[in-house]
């Protein structure tokens, strides 16, 4: 085999070209090409740095991102919450969950370098994952992006044991690509990301609601309502927070507001019917749940809506629906 290679050196050249071109997924200069609307360089120098202990880049990077958002916490404390000894590492979802548990919004960024740079330029450090190894032999790593320099073609990271790592942007892109370009922001609930996207922001805040961080969810929903006054989702989120707190009058008004914004919203119809039932308005409850049932047909909400409908049907069998006090 070696002999045949020696006789045909062009094979080696072809193989080398194939390997090299395979690696160079990002031609030089291309990485920053969409960032010309941003300053040439930007760096959030005041972002603190927590040094990584053995295998614990997750807790360290999370501590860095959290303290930048105003929550001072040591990596040791976070390790108990996110580290998996058997994996010698931490999972992305658990980092986000630990941030949520401290009333922070964990906002997943779109997988584009420009989006990360926009956040950095706006003063928001980015928690991200890299694969510093190979596809087949991965070395997963969490770091925090705090700056970039278009002239020097570098990004600046808080990484592992290095407080300020200037990494060549091509190299960074390869490591970030190999980690499926995962990147999140950790924000206080009253601060929106730069160029916020409704879907991404709502997903982050609704996760706060679903895990019981109601005060933080409410503050963030209020920000969202200010940003997207025409969208049903922030209004619906606020109504759901009210319901979870037992503020039923406020919740009912909130669901009505939501339906004014989107008369087709299944969740608003369903939840409103539940509240109406609870205060004895069976007829109205039935009309909203019928609407919800029609709208939910064929979607993933069909099952929960059907369960509410059964609940209402059982109650209306016993109740004539005559008593419905004004709210």
């Amino acid at each position, binding site marked *: 085999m*070696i002999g045949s290679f020696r006789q045909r050196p062009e094979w080696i050249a072809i193989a080398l070209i194939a390997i090299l071109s395979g690696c160079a997924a990002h031609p030089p200069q291309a990485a920053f090409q969409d960032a010309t609307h941003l300053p040439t360089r930007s760096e959030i120098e005041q972002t603190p740095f927590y040094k*990584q202990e053995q*295998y614990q*880049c*997750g807790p*360290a*990077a999370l501590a860095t991102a959290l303290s930048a958002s105003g929550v001072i916490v040591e990596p040791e404390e976070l390790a*108990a919450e996110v580290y*998996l*000894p*058997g*994996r*010698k*590492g*931490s*999972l*992305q*979802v*658990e980092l986000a*969950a*630990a941030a*949520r*548990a401290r009333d922070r919004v964990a906002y997943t960024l779109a997988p584009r370098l420009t989006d990360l740079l926009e956040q950095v330029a706006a003063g928001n450090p980015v928690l991200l*994952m890299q694969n*510093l*190894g*190979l596809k087949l*032999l991965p*070395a*997963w*790593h969490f770091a925090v992006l705090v700056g970039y320099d278009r002239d020097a073609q570098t990004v600046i990271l808080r*990484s*592992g044991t290095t407080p300020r790592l200037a990494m060549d942007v091509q190299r960074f892109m390869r490591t970030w690509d190999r*980690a499926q370009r995962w990147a999140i922001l950790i924000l206080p609930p009253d601060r929106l990301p730069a160029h916020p996207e409704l879907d991404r922001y709502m*997903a982050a*805040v*609704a*996760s706060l*609601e*679903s*895990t019981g961080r109601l005060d933080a969810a409410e503050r963030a929903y209020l920000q969202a309502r200010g940003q997207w006054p025409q969208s049903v*989702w922030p209004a*619906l*989120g606020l109504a*759901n927070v009210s319901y979870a707190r037992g503020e039923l009058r406020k919740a009912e008004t909130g669901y009505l507001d939501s339906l004014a914004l989107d008369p087709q919203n*299944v*969740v608003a119809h*369903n*939840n409103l*019917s*539940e509240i109406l*039932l609870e205060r004895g308005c069976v007829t109205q409850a039935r009309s909203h749940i019928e609407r919800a049932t029609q709208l939910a047909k*064929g*979607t*993933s*909400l069909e*099952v*929960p*809506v059907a369960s509410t409908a059964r*609940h209402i049907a059982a109650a209306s069998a016993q109740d004539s629906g005559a008593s419905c006090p004004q709210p």
Partner: protein
Amino acid sequence: MVKLMQKTLVHVLAVSIIGLGSPMLAQAGIISTLEGIQSTQAQSDLARINQALAREQVREQMRALGVDEAQVQARLARLTEAELQTLADRLDHLPAGAGLLEVIGIVFIVLFILEAVGVIDVFKNVP
């Protein structure tokens, strides 16, 4: 009689333990905002039915990975249903960020392999 009482006690405990694991905001009849925005054009009976199972599965996996018993419950409570589902389905395949020390180990292995290849090249190819 004692047996019956024991049996009842076991059932009550079992139910209360299952209750501990259930999401705190699952009020009957109310659909969460998250469920609303994540709703898809496909039914997901299966996902709903498996929620309790997913939680139990992740609990077992975390224990097996050496998470402190007292921490498991708190860590599970912080996850959304969708996240629990993902962990239950593919925790073993999800990347776990470890950091640079592991990288040094890998670099060593790669260097070792390269060196081994290099040795063959140098010693066998030189006439």
